[in-house]
């Protein structure tokens, strides 16, 4: 039977782990609020740029943009948004599973895959399993700057412009609520043309200053960038929510373990006392 000292030591060690996990839970809870605010602050821009893009789709533009062009796909690029830190349950793993499934599906149709990775977890994962990686952006922090993603997006868009890739997918976690995060793989390029009814199809076009090509290039690039940025900040909110839940579970588990060990400790202590008593009684009757 275990001795009391050992059990006491174990309880102390679990208690200190529990302190850490409960502190992490509280940190995640406060960060979650902030990341959710950031997510909401970013929304107006993505909504407005979406409005503008849908207006443009309605205008009978003189210049059809390559982002709308459906090519026979030979190669696809996955932009994978992951977290920089672990301890957030199955958040990243569930996303990678979807990415790998989609990539395997494309592989069967003879479409190659390549990857642009955001977050340390994604780069670590693809480092161990292989795969052609075009660009990496990591350690963006809790409040990522939209400018930190320009480089990565540009690499992908340039590849598309040169005809090296024909499709792009954006893979990230969508924030449903604190308890639920939904991994999504969405097609980014070619952009899905907006659905619109016949009545709105009047003949009009913008005045473009300067050239339509230059403007649309810039604007659609911003649009893609804004989608990627929105995915990153949403993923951040997901990370903190998942971390909070994971740490809460860990804290609860530690509590259960401590309870069990305390029961064991009391058993052991009582057994020792009983034994000692019976020894004394035995000794006294022998005298």
């Amino acid at each position, binding site marked *: 039977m275990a001795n009391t000292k050992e059990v006491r030591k174990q309880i102390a060690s679990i208690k200190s782990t529990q302190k850490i996990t409960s502190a992490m839970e509280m940190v995640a809870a406060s960060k979650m609020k902030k990341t959710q605010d950031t997510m909401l602050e970013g929304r107006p821009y993505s909504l407005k740029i979406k409005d503008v893009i849908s207006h443009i789709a309605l205008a009978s533009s003189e210049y059809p943009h390559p982002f709308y062009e459906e090519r026979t796909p030979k190669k696809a690029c996955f932009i994978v948004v992951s977290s920089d830190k672990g301890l957030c349950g199955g958040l990243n793993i569930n996303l990678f599973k979807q990415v790998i499934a989609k990539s395997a599906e494309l592989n069967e149709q003879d479409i190659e895959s390549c990857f642009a990775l955001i977050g340390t977890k994604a780069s670590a994962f693809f480092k161990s399993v*292989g795969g052609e990686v075009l660009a990496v952006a990591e350690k963006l922090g809790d409040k990522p700057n939209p400018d930190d993603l320009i*480089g990565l997006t540009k690499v992908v868009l340039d590849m598309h412009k040169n005809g090296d890739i024909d499709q792009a997918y954006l893979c990230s976690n969508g924030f449903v609520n604190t308890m639920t995060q939904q991994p999504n793989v969405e097609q980014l390029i070619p952009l899905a043309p907006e659905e619109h009814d016949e009545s709105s199809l009047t003949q009009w076009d913008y005045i473009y200053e300067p050239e339509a090509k230059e403007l649309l290039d810039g604007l659609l690039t911003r649009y893609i960038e804004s989608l990627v940025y929105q995915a990153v900040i949403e993923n951040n909110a997901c990370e903190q929510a998942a971390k909070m839940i994971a740490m809460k579970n860990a804290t*609860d588990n530690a509590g259960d373990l401590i309870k069990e060990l305390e029961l064991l400790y009391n058993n052991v202590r009582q057994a020792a006392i009983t034994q000692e008593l019976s020894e004394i009684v035995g000794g006294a009757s022998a005298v």
Partner: protein
Amino acid sequence: MSTIKINIVSSSEEIYTGEATMVYATGTLGELGIAPGHTPLLTGLAAGPVRVQNGSEEEAFFCSGGFLEVQPDLVTVLSDTAERADSLDEAEAIKAKETAEQELANKDATLDYAKASAQLAEAVARLKTIQKLRKKQ
């Protein structure tokens, strides 16, 4: 007096939304003045002030570049958070590529599907076990 709706947003926040009788902005080809009922226009913005006039009131915002869309009843300003230049974008792109090369030095360029699925399956199994253990208690 007729007014036009104006929205000014940047990627990290909503800057201004309201009504205006006149909007002035610095386009890439020069100063613009937009009154209600303006014909549809799409233009790039140069760094400069965007002024929103509503009657006698006027508000000004600095915009470091971006885009301006005009519909007859609506003006949308999509402001960039920082000044953008092709050379800077190029530098950022090279940085992202270099990080990729450094991070993933000397590894296989073909994705090992079997290995990837195995690794993910293992991770999922581990998570499931933890959940099961927890339910038992």
